[in-house]
């Protein structure tokens, strides 16, 4: 089963300039990455732990990962691929390129599929999102720089 395209639409004030929209998109992407590397999902909750098999795997060891630091980073490519997909007056679309390997990996984490057809909420690590409070902080920050 192909991975679902993973993206979010973010509503922003229509009064913002193109430059400001891009700045906000950049800060949203960086915030998502920052929070994910800190081990927290889009609601600020800690991610479910890694499986025993994964912790014992050669890749886990070779990537220098720690069992106690669940940060969705192996090679680093998935989080590097998170980007602004589209921007219009009042809306930003942030996510992964549809059909890419990184979208598939993100989909595995977000829905908890990890190669299976069905998702598993208990294993899901949904990092793709920004809270209203985070968004307000970011928009206020960009507007304050006018």
């Amino acid at each position: 089963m192909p991975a679902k395209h993973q993206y979010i639409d973010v509503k922003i004030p229509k009064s913002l300039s193109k430059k400001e929209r891009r700045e906000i998109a950049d800060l949203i992407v960086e915030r998502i990455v920052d929070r994910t590397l800190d081990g927290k999902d889009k609601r600020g909750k800690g991610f479910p732990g890694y499986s025993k098999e994964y912790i014992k795997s050669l890749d886990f060891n070779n990537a220098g990962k720690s069992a106690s630091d669940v940060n969705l980073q192996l090679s680093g490519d998935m989080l590097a691929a998170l980007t602004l997909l589209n921007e219009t007056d009042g809306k930003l679309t942030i996510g992964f390129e549809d059909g890419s390997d990184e979208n598939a990996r993100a989909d595995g984490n977000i829905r908890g599929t990890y190669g299976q057809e069905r998702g598993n909420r208990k294993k899901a690590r949904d990092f793709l999102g920004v809270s209203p409070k985070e968004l307000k902080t970011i928009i206020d920050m960009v507007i304050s720089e006018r």
Partner: protein
Amino acid sequence: MSVKVDVKRFTDKIEKFLKEAVSTRTIKPIAEELTNIIVKRTRLGYGVKNNFGKREKLRASGPGGGFKPSYLKKRLRGPLDSTTAPRKLNLTFTGQLLRSVSVIKAQDGKIIIGPTGTRNDGKDNQKIAQYNADQGRIFLNVSELEFKQILRFYRREFTDLRRKLGLISRRNG
């Protein structure tokens, strides 16, 4: 056999902030981070044939891209480095090649990273890397997503992004 990243080449193409990255203060940490990314990706079993292209699984010259039977026998006998397994294709047997990859030069807007030194058996690590490259196992390049990782590293370490993310984090936990 080494990777040469001409930082200046990308100043106009990517972002203005990379202009600052050519300074001596910032270029060394960038070069070290890039070395870590290349070594880690190779240990995970991927190479990059073209700079700023996509990473690809490393393949050996045996049947189906696996090891030749005679070489597999040797790997099964071992002893292998702890960063590999008999059937794992990640340019590792003793581990000396990837451990030798380091920053050769990081100044004047250029970063050169490559294998260095000789091995226990007297062979040159650079020659081993060249042999692998001749066989299509090219690992000393930088993929597009790895370059994005480096840009992020630079921005987080040396630009105003660090302060902004700190502020967002303090207000949102």
